[in-house]
């Protein structure tokens, strides 16, 4: 395993850096985070960044997770707005690539790779978050259609996305084994959306999603009936690497801001960088980011090598999002009063960091996964 970037990876990183500097940052500075940044999403497709790890045969980049993570990290120097959009778009892509049939792959993957179609992943419900097996949305087979009834909440890209990967119960009483995965296209009869939720920092565009006798073709079942929970968890296992990567980019950006501020700001007649109290904070911030990055790269490396990576992916998600929370909070501290001002960038990074500790499995859930893996090994 190599800790340095290959020349290809470095060129890829620069491509993203250029996109961020030239297109993404000016766009977000001008338009804010209120509306979904469609032009930027489309541009990701144009640049070949909307399907980095997915198969070449379906228009994807055919690259590994280390490249994918690198792109997400660099993209998230803006904050997680675009990085998390790309990561969430990746969940239905991963599911279709891994569990979809040929027809489903042909129909959706190339268009998603070109960023003509935006994807969403709909698991969480008002009364089933961490305990995802407790979802209640029903899917009943009637003739050659499935009819969905129920409600999802906190669905990133809800109302914006064209393709929703929806988990619903096909057989009651079986728990996880009664859940199946479906493709629901925007515009399906009986599909509607709530108003935009307002998560702090607004990095995600989330809405409630309602299914009211929502009719979809039977052919939209992904994988076998009853596989839905496995499908969702498989996507989230890989998704954790992507959340880690976005958090590391965000944390690195906060650290870089803080670092340069310590050489701008003076107090007691010196730059605040001269104070050991500040230096120790900077050292801890840098160490936390680097440690998280190493674990994240290891998880990606294991995945790329076809080895089990769940344990490391959960560790990476836990360490990276906690590091991002700590580093962004300290960055605000280093900026002092100015750090709290909306005229300065660090408070926004801090608010976004909080969200990553919660999504795709809260950090408590990550600890459960880690412990379960540890004990599983012991018991074997």
């Amino acid at each position: 395993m190599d800790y340095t970037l290959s020349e290809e990876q470095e060129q890829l990183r620069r491509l993203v850096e250029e996109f961020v500097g030239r297109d993404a940052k000016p766009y977000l500075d001008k338009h804010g985070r209120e509306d979904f940044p469609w032009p930027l999403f489309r541009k990701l497709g144009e640049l070949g960044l909307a399907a980095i790890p997915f198969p070449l045969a379906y228009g994807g980049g055919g690259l590994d997770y280390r490249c994918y993570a690198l792109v997400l990290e660099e993209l998230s120097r803006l904050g997680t707005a675009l990085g998390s959009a790309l990561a969430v778009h990746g969940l239905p892509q991963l599911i279709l690539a891994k569990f979809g049939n040929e027809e489903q792959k042909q129909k959706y993957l190339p268009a998603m790779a070109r960023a003509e179609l935006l994807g969403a992943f709909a698991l969480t419900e008002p009364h089933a978050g961490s305990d995802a097996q407790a979802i209640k949305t029903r899917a009943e087979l009637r003739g050659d259609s499935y009819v969905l009834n129920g409600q999802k909440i906190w669905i990133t890209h809800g109302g914006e996305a064209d393709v929703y990967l929806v988990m619903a119960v096909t057989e009651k009483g079986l728990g996880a084994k009664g859940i199946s995965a479906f493709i629901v296209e925007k515009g399906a009869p009986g599909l509607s959306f709530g108003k935009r939720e307002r998560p702090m920092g607004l990095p995600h565009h989330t809405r409630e999603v309602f299914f009211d006798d929502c009719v979809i073709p039977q052919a939209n079942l992904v994988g076998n009936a009853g596989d839905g929970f496995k499908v969702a968890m498989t996507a989230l296992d890989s998704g954790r690497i992507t959340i880690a990567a976005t958090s590391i980019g965000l944390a690195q950006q906060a650290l870089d801001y803080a670092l340069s501020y310590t050489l701008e700001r003076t107090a007691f007649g010196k730059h605040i960088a001269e104070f050991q109290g500040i230096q120790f904070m900077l050292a801890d911030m840098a160490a936390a980011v680097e440690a998280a990055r190493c674990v994240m790269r290891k998880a990606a490396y294991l995945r790329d090598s076809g080895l089990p990576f769940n344990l490391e992916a959960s560790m990476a998600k836990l360490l990276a999002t906690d590091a991002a929370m700590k580093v962004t909070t300290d960055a605000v501290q280093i900026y002092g009063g100015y750090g709290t001002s909306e005229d300065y960038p660090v408070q926004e990074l801090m608010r976004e960091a909080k969200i990553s500790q919660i999504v795709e499995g809260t950090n408590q859930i990550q600890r459960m996964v880690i412990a379960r893996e540890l004990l599983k090994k012991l018991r074997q």
Partner: protein
Amino acid sequence: MPVNIIVCVKQILDPEIPSRDFRVDAEQREAVRGAANLVTNIFCENALETALQLKEKSGGKITVISYGADSTEDALRKALAMKADAAIHILNDGQAHPDPLSVAQVLAAAIRKLGEFDVVMLGRESGDWGVGQTAGLLAEELGVAAVAFVDKVEIGADGLQLKRQTDVGYERVAATMPLVISITNDEHNVPRIPKTRDVMMSFRQPLTKWTLEDLGVNAAEVRAGNHYYAVVDLFIPVQELNCEFVDGDTLEARVEKFAQRIIEVTGSM
């Protein structure tokens, strides 16, 4: 009409680094690399973009050439990723401060070795030293005409239609080929960002490497450089800021005194 285009590019220290991080080595009379990335000079990328757009309309071929240290390969890979057809790296193995004339001599030798060309495009100047002589000197070495500060290139009746920026506006020039053009930036030639796939493919494309010896130039002479041009001193100017308040009882009095001070200060400059 397919056009055979050569674009010359230069790799430089990223000029976009925060000014606080910029240092110079006064003794060596050069910028200190520090944490700065090496990047392709922006005007060279404007030139490549102009070439790519011309080729998209007229067909033809784009060959990118750079004279530089080992690291220059990065700039050439990027040019390939942007969809140049071929790249040639002329290795600079020890000329510390290549002066514009020796660069032009090396580039001219490489272009002669390549054979025929219709147009050579270069950036109007580089973002490190900003001398802006290479294009003119190269045209002289090649014995062809040069047009400078061009921001638009189109195919004309029997040659190229060029639009060039001047101090007072712009000029349109009808030029016959072969010729050398220096390109300046404009909203039409913002360099494209390469696509992911093309970045990866660029590492599988051949990259021609030539030494000075391969070009048949006198390598020792080139390394010694031309002495018409020398950097005598290099320093970061210190900005002195003096803030002065003018007083006076009335607004008129203050304005009067203010104007008086401006005359005194600018008069002594």
